[in-house]
């Protein structure tokens, strides 16, 4: 929130026309996307450029991955995309298990799926709520968080924590769940199914919301693929690519679910409304997956028998997973020691954020807010 005068970079002063203005949507935001700095150059009312400046949340995750043991990395993975902690840890554990040829028991795989899908719903509820908040509708945020409280209570029963769970482990999951937790999950599914039409009545079908998001931030197919978009951003443009179907992991192939894809229902294909709608429908699909997983939950161990320090033979592996925000993958290079040699994170929000400038050209500043909200980034994984 600085005034324009302090934010002119030196080279901009020479070429600055009188109508152009450099605006800093500073690292501190009222919108809850994290510490993102957007430097926007406006030509009068319209934005001519919008460059994201990141790094305010950089915590050297990849360097830490080279200095601690494999199983000690798992709590750090929680903190990448802190809204989808289960999914991050799952992706990392899959990478290690693939390289070390560790067999995960079936019960553990199903538990991982249940938790990952619950976390997907929780993350999409945050995306829904904060998007509404950005656009000035304060109430849907609280309705979404009311449902999310049920999920966090389930996670607290299962793992002991409400946000950073450290639940998927190398070889399985940390703890088993009891009948209370199963009952709580089933109760939540009913509650969520009842609340979903209310979200649509309040926000999705609201004429003002549609006017703000439809035909705004349109991402054509080719551009989506060129910028490496994944997740709802990609599917909002009509491309039906979901890692859970394309490269199934953790027994996702056992479950029947659809991949929601944007259709340009309210405006143009690939606009903000489509991306938002993909997230909303994914909530329903995740509920289906959870139900199937609960119904088919087998008995058995929840963690494979492993030595205290996991031994991973030398080699490299990349396992993509479908995070709520897109494709998360850990590129792991092992060297036969208890620590990895290189742990690179392919973060979905980092790649999705790259499209900001292309989308923000020629729109009003209010639309930039709508665009960033529809891309749905979490700075934890953008900066790592």
């Amino acid at each position, binding site marked *: 929130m600085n005034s324009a005068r302090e934010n002119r970079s030196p080279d901009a002063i020479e070429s600055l026309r009188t109508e152009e203005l450099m605006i800093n949507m500073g690292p501190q935001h009222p919108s809850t996307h994290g510490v993102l700095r957007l430097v926007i150059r406006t030509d009068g009312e319209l934005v001519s450029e919008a460059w994201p400046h990141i790094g305010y949340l950089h915590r050297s995750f990849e360097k830490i991955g080279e200095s*601690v*043991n494999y*199983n*000690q*990395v*798992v*709590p*750090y993975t929680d903190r990448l995309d802190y809204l989808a902690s289960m999914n991050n840890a799952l992706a990392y554990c899959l990478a290690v298990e693939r390289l070390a040829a560790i067999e995960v028991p079936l019960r553990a795989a199903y538990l991982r799926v249940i938790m990952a899908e619950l976390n997907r719903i929780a993350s999409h509820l945050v995306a829904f709520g904060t998007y509404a908040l950005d656009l000035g509708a304060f*109430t849907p945020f609280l*309705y979404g968080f*009311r449902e999310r*409280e049920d999920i966090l209570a389930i996670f*607290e*029963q299962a*793992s*002991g*924590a409400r946000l*950073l769970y*450290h639940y998927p482990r190398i070889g399985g999951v*940390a*703890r088993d769940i009891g009948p209370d937790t199963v009952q709580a999950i089933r109760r939540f599914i009913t509650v969520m199914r009842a609340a979903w039409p*209310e979200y649509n*009545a*309040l*926000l999705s*079908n*609201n*004429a*003002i919301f549609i006017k703000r998001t439809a035909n705004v931030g*349109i991402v*054509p*197919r080719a551009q989506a693929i060129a910028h490496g978009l994944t997740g709802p951003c990609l599917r909002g443009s*009509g491309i039906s690519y979901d890692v859970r179907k394309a490269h199934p992991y953790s027994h996702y192939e056992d479950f029947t679910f659809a991949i929601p894809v944007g*259709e*340009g*229902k*309210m*405006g*143009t*294909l*690939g606009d903000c409304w489509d991306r938002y709608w993909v997230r909303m429908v994914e909530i329903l699909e995740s509920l289906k997956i959870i139900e199937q997983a609960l119904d088919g939950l087998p008995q058995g161990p929840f963690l494979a028998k492993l030595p*205290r320090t996991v031994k991973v033979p030398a080699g490299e592996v990349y396992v993509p997973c479908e995070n709520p925000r897109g494709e998360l993958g850990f590129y792991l290079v092992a060297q036969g020691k208890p620590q990895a040699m290189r742990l690179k994170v392919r973060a979905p929000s980092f790649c999705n954020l790259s499209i900001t400038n292309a989308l923000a050209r020629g729109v009003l500043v209010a639309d930039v807010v709508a665009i960033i909200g529809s891309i749905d980034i979490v700075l934890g994984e953008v900066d790592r």
Partner: protein
Amino acid sequence: MTVSAAKRHPFVQYFADLWSGVTTTCTGLRLTLRYLFKPKVTLLYPEERPAIPAGHRGIHRYVEEECLLCRACEAACPVDCLVINAIGRGKDRMILNFDIDYAKCLFCNLCCEACNPKCLVLTGDYDLSTTKRDTCLIDFAHRKTSAQIEEHKKFLEQKEAEKKAAAEKRDAPKECGEEGNGSN
């Protein structure tokens, strides 16, 4: 790449937009009015507390008497916030410090999972806020006076000396035994 509804005459679209604006607004208003009269979900903290399930990862509880001083917890910690300071080993050990720096602790539970006798567990106490940074470092070992520490050190030295003497006695008697045996 437009897959929207069939193009309508702008005149018709104008009134359609207007009508949808009015109807969707009314739908939203009806929903929020219903919620005005529904029961509220607020928990009046700190008078009302949430139900904390068993296994909630809060502050540690350490039972010093059962600790084997295997230091598995120290090794397992990903952020090196657990530091153990002890003298002696096995049953003769005296644990001087069992420090956990809560400014670093992730509450990830790796230390407790590594603990074999389960003398270290995470409890359900979550209300840990403090205003001073030095209160973040908590020593879970019982307070020992310097006199006790000195006494224990002496005890250990004494035991060490006894062990040494016993070992020397075992090693040295080669000459004695030969002498004794071969005294002919």
